[in-house]
């Protein structure tokens, strides 16, 4: 497999793989993982139960609708939000839960110096923990989705079409990526902040700030950057709206939600807030359905954006970690 150890003829697994398999084994048997899976199951079961009832009630009206199976995940039945909406809300929490004590936890336990005295590189530790976290998240998300889809098939009595399955798989990959962004944020916090409780708070604070005040923040920043525009002037108003949109695009949460919308609704043909001319065009457009490929094309920038944020956090955490002293 990998290079043999110096002169000893030992077959070595790369360091990150050793770290990842230990971390994954420890994670999967942890109370933390059990709680998060329960949370996810709850987030899945309630909306799907409510949605499937609503869909059956409206079965007559809905019978002609395309992508009926996907509606199971995307519609809510008041006051229960949709499955997708709930996942969007708790996804960051999952990422944070698996990463907030990655490095400072090792420090606090007194295992960091011992671990690094064995023949692995420091980035093996970061890489291994990241891979293990992402794998644990993947297992949880895919597992819960399978259960939900199974229950949906039984309750609705509809078999999803291959196109719908494709969309769901793509949405799962997108969700894992989005959770990965928060895993990256949390790991960066665990490198930057000495105490695990503090780094958890930092990451959760960032999550709340972005998810509760994200839109507000974008409006405020846009107001600062472009003060005193005249709302009566269409040009200026459009410019301002576009600035706001650009600013909210920095927020991974809104990027994820837009991409989710496009993936799970074949009828969505654009994910930007339209300008006046585009709005006119859209209102005159004959409703069409996009293929999965076309939907993916629309959200490609979103995917790349999320990937960039994740990689940036990840790279930042190991650049900082590499320069840190082993002793706190």
């Amino acid at each position, binding site marked *: 497999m990998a290079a043999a150890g110096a002169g000893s003829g030992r077959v070595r697994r790369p360091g990150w793989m*050793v770290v990842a398999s230990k971390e994954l084994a420890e994670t999967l048997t942890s109370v933390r993982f059990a709680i998060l899976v329960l949370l996810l199951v709850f987030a899945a079961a309630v909306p799907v139960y409510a949605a499937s009832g609503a869909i059956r009630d409206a079965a007559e009206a809905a019978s002609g609708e395309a992508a009926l199976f996907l509606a199971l995940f995307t519609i809510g039945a008041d006051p229960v939000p949709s499955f997708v909406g709930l996942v969007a809300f708790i996804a960051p929490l999952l990422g944070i839960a698996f990463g907030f004590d990655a490095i400072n936890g090792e420090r606090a336990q*007194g295992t960091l110096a011992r671990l690094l*005295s064995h*023949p692995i590189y420091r980035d093996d530790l970061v890489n291994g923990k990241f891979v293990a976290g992402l794998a644990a998240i993947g297992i949880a998300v895919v597992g819960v989705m399978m259960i939900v889809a199974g229950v949906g098939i039984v309750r609705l009595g509809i078999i999803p079409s291959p196109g719908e399955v494709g969309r769901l798989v793509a949405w799962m990959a997108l969700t894992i990526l989005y959770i990965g962004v928060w895993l990256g944020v949390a790991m960066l916090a665990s490198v930057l902040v000495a105490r695990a409780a503090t780094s958890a708070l930092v990451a959760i604070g960032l999550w709340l700030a972005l998810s509760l005040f994200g839109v507000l923040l974008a409006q405020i920043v846009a107001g600062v950057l472009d003060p005193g525009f005249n709302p009566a002037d269409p040009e200026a108003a459009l410019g301002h709206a576009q600035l706001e949109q650009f600013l909210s695009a920095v927020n991974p949460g809104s990027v994820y939600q837009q991409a989710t919308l496009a993936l799970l609704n074949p009828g969505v043909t654009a994910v930007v807030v339209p300008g006046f001319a585009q709005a006119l065009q859209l209102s005159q457009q004959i409703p069409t359905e996009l293929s999965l490929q076309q939907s993916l094309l629309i959200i490609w920038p979103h995917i790349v954006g999320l990937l960039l944020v994740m990689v940036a956090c990840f790279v930042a955490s190991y650049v900082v970690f590499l320069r840190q002293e082993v002793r706190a």
Partner: protein
Amino acid sequence: MPSENAGRVEPLVETIDLTKAYGSITAVDALTLRVLPGEIYGLLGPNGAGKTTTILMLLGLTTPTSGTARVLGLDPAHRALDVKRRVGYLPDAVGFYGRLTGRENLRYTADLNGLPRDEAEAVIDDLLARVGLAGAADRPTSGYSRGMLQRLGIADALVKDPAVLILDEPTTSIDPAGVVELLALIRRLVAERGVGVLLSSHLLGQVERLCDRVGIFWRGRLLAEGTVADLATQAGDPSLDLEAAYGRLVAAATEGRRDVAA
């Protein structure tokens, strides 16, 4: 390596003018020392003297500001992985993963060192018995006492069958009976395996009993080095014990420093 080294025993650990500065604070100041095979070398000094910093430089876990370090002839700053394959390290206040058992913790270490599974199991069984943890091997380490963790730490350092063992304050926070046991264990290991040991401590009595040679380390500088008898001679009275010699050498250094400052 200079040619004048030819014909003498190759040291396991060697530092020449090794220096580490954090900003304006010099943690280790031009340290020059050697540890030979089969020898227990004690780095004796108060907390904050720079002992741990020195050890981290020897393992390539922090880079020296100037000077050189050689461990098994390798520069740890550039060949850290090769050094870490052959050097066992017991850190100050060593920790383990509390949810894993002692055996599982050592298995992880064996994996990190690339030991094949079957070989690892044999090595782990042997080491657990040797450090007296065979009975507790399958209990989570969260239930271990400080002394048990320390002994597991020694087993952990030995998994890779090292040529050099570096022990940072190995007896801190262990009860007296545990200390006696641990020191006997270290002696036995040196006798059986011929490893060289570099040990740091601030406990005079233990260093005196255990170490072949002692270096007195104070505020980042090595004040004196040698057997306890050598140190006593350097302190001006060959009949002194280590404690008295240490006191005199440190006092002399303090005065020296005052003279320089004046």
